């Protein structure tokens, strides 16, 4: 390896990596156990232990190997799968079905998810009403806690929320990794503006009709969470849309392109998170002096956040979700995690350490509950 590149490697020694992992070890221990470990239930104890160790091993490996994306992807994908499992399990327990009826809507029993947020803003501002039929406080997936968690995460991470906090992103991230090489190589980045158009449309239609139109008509993740009971032509058409969009944008296209197509071309919350990238302290920087313009970063970016022009100008676009794929792919270590105000090329290790700690904290906080639930269910089958 080139001596300069070797010096710039993000790898750490075993002892140093352990030292860096120690604060995360303590923090995850506190919020996973709630500060009061209860070892009375063997399956639950085992689930907590496996989750706790698994997370901390992944965080340790990020420091030890100097690589980010592949370890982030493991927890991100497991998070998406486990969350869907938890949601479905809850729904089966509560209403014995994955579908909800009009009565469930009237009684505000629908679990809230962060994708509703873009549709809530205008009606909340103008009519002081929340247009989602869920619980505001208390109960499973209530509105206030989800909004607060999203708000804090997006203010800190910007669009990093889409790779470190979203419980759906792992689906298309996972499918985008199925093939080693993409079958479809050229997709115009013109389409990356589509989420803004979707945002515009759903925000307006939701404000005018006072219904969460994205959830009612478009959301592909209805296919793996809950959906409206099919009782009419309209509800059948909706179910058709959910399944087609899930199949097309979450499964087939990511597998063929190695890109996260749902996140890139549809998600309206992703559009809002892109805007919050403008205010977050964390960013990805390009050191133009070190860059040899091989454009490997452009090729691997799953969200069309980098173009050759961006690389030449040394600027990463607002579409960046800080997943770390480009950072790991750069042989010259020219692209790196950075903090706004610190020039590109300097304090790379410091910036990465701070970013990793913050972003991993969020993903661990968001995902641990659902992962423990899934593991507990699995262990209960054997213990």
């Amino acid at each position, binding site marked *: 390896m080139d001596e300069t590149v070797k010096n710039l490697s993000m790898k750490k020694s075993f002892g140093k990596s352990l030292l860096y992992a120690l604060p995360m070890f303590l923090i995850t221990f506190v919020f996973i156990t709630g500060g009061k470990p209860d070892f009375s239930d063997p399956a639950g104890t085992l689930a907590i232990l496996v989750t706790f160790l698994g997370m901390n091993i992944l965080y340790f490996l990020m420091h030890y190997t100097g690589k980010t994306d592949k370890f982030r992807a493991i927890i991100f994908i497991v998070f998406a799968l486990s969350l869907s499992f938890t949601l479905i399990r809850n729904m089966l327990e509560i209403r014995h079905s994955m579908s909800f009826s009009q009565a469930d809507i009237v009684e505000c029993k629908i679990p809230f998810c962060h994708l509703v947020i873009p549709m809530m803003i205008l009606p909340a501002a103008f009519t002081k009403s929340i247009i989602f039929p869920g619980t505001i406080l208390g109960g499973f997936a209530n509105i206030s806690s989800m909004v607060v968690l999203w708000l804090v995460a997006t203010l800190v991470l910007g669009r990093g929320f889409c790779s470190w906090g979203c419980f759906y992103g792992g689906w298309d991230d996972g499918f985008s990794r199925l093939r080693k090489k993409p079958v479809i190589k050229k997709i*115009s980045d*013109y389409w990356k*503006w*589509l989420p*803004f*158009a*979707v945002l*515009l*449309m759903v925000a*307006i*239609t939701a404000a*005018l*009709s006072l219904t969460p139109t994205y959830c009612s008509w478009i959301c592909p993740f209805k296919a793996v969470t809950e959906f409206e009971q099919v009782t009419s*032509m309209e509800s059948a*058409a909706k179910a058709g849309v959910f399944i087609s969009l899930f199949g097309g944008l979450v499964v087939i296209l990511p597998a063929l392109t190695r890109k996260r197509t749902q996140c890139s071309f549809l998600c309206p919350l992703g559009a809002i998170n892109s805007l919050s990238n403008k205010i977050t302290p964390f960013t990805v920087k390009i050191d133009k002096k070190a860059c040899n313009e091989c454009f490997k970063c452009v090729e691997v970016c799953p969200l069309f956040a980098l173009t050759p022009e961006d690389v030449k100008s040394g600027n990463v676009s607002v579409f960046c979700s800080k997943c770390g794929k480009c950072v790991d792919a750069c042989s010259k270590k020219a692209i790196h995690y950075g903090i706004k105000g610190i020039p590109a090329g300097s304090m790379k290790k410091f910036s990465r350490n701070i970013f990793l700690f913050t972003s991993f904290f969020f993903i661990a906080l968001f995902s641990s509950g659902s992962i423990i639930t899934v593991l507990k269910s699995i262990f209960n089958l054997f213990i």
Partner: protein
Amino acid sequence: MLDTFILGLSSGSTCLLTCGMVFFPYLMAGSAGTRKIITDFSFFLLTRLIVYFLLATLVWYFGKTIFTSAIFRNYISGILYILFAVMLIWYSVGRNRKPDCPAKIVTMVNNKKLVPVFLGVVNSLGFCPALLLILTKSATQGTITQSYLAFLGFFAGSSLYFLPLPLAGRFRKKKVFETIGTLATGLAGIIFIIKGITNLIGGIING
């Protein structure tokens, strides 16, 4: 009215960004004060509204005369919705399309006082797929009031973008807004395809 308002809102931004640069110099030419700008805009918008109401009346009358059966009305509107919505989507995703403003011919008008009125007429009669969709809707409405409301929705949605026209020249990211507006137009097209299919199915079931 909601669907036509959305259509106006989604296609209005593209309309503004395609034609805004043509409108802007003419509307602003020789205008020193806010009063003149407001007067010119008022004439421009009023002309559009009048033309739309005239179109609503004409189209509703012809629709009533030609589409005598309700089922036939469902079939025709369904097919036309789908056809024009596909045109609208093609208009929004066709990468080789060179947007051209019909109001360019305004250069032929010598009387500056007539320019806002002329612009209003040309802008309203620019037969884009969005207007064709509204015409279809209007022609298949039961009452003339419904026909007026359909055009009123479209007028309100598309006019919103003309309000900050004096600032249009200062947009730093015109291209981005144009792209988002164009894509939103395509999405509005999808809404009308669904509407068209629903009408067709309604026609088949009732027929």
